[in-house]
């Protein structure tokens, strides 16, 4: 690979919009500097690589901001992560409640059965909240908020009616909906505003 092709490949570190405007000039500059640096090629390449390492990340960040906001990217990633976690915790709670139900079946009384049913219900609600967040409908956040609150209520009731769940299942059943509610409120507070409107 010629040195110019190598530099052209390295220019991919810069955002496409920047390359479109400046790549030709940067290549001209590269040729000129390579000519000036005859006999000092190691130093030339070290300086060139250092220049890319120093300048490319900042320009990439600026390009992301210009495209619609870094916040939006972070928010989307956080929303996806929370959606996946909600689905997984929901599945876990359903499975755990069913296992508890099968294990205690011979001696089941009404409060105990109610707790198992609430555990299954809470898990299903959390799973649906995760799916709603993944599908990202117009009202996904408010629907997920309501479902997280419902799940929290279900697990609080389990604590009062008959605490049949394991410590970890109760911790997840009470803790995760609280985290989800806090996250959704935080997200609402950071929702991007219309550009130009203060």
């Amino acid at each position, binding site marked *: 690979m010629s040195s110019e092709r190598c530099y052209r490949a390295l220019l991919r570190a810069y955002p496409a919009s920047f390359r479109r405007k400046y790549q030709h000039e940067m290549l001209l500059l590269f040729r000129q500097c390579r000519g000036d640096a005859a006999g000092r090629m190691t130093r030339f390449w070290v300086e060139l690589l250092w220049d890319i390492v120093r300048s*490319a990340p900042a320009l990439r960040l600026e390009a992301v901001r210009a495209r619609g906001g870094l916040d939006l990217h972070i928010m989307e990633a956080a929303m996806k992560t929370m959606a996946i976690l909600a689905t997984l915790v929901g599945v876990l709670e359903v499975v755990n409640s069913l296992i508890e139900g099968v294990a205690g079946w011979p001696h089941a009384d009404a409060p105990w059965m109610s707790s198992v049913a609430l555990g299954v219900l809470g898990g299903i609600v959390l799973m649906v909240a995760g799916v709603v967040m993944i599908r990202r409908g117009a009202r996904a956040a408010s629907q997920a908020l309501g479902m997280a609150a419902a799940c929290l209520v279900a697990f609080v009731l389990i604590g009062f009616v008959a605490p049949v769940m394991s410590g970890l299942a109760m911790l997840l059943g009470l803790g995760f909906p609280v985290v989800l509610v806090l996250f959704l409120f935080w997200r609402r507070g950071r929702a991007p505003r219309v550009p130009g409107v203060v």
Partner: protein
Amino acid sequence: MPRRPDDRPPESFLPLPAATFQILLALVGEERHGYAIMKEVADRSDDTVRLGPGTLYGTLKRLLEAGLVEEGGERADPGVDDERRRYYRITKLGLAVARAEAKRLERMVRAARRKKLIGLGTA
């Protein structure tokens, strides 16, 4: 309503990053292309400040967006080669910002001199 670059007072851009001030300084009084800017900065600083292509064009992009520099068209520079190059020139606002930064640095140098960090008898 977003402010136009011209509405900003020059002092609001300060302090300037070193590369930005060097580029503005290189463009004072003459429009230049990228390579000429790079050479001027290297020559003026006895080769201690060397702008790489990424730093140079990244800074020029920001200066263009801020209205401190404008494009002056494309043409070949017979002193370099036959390739057409884009020329850049400093704007009125850019000149005011460079002047404000120079004054700021001058004040700092004066303070350093008063504290005897530089001046007669120091290395």
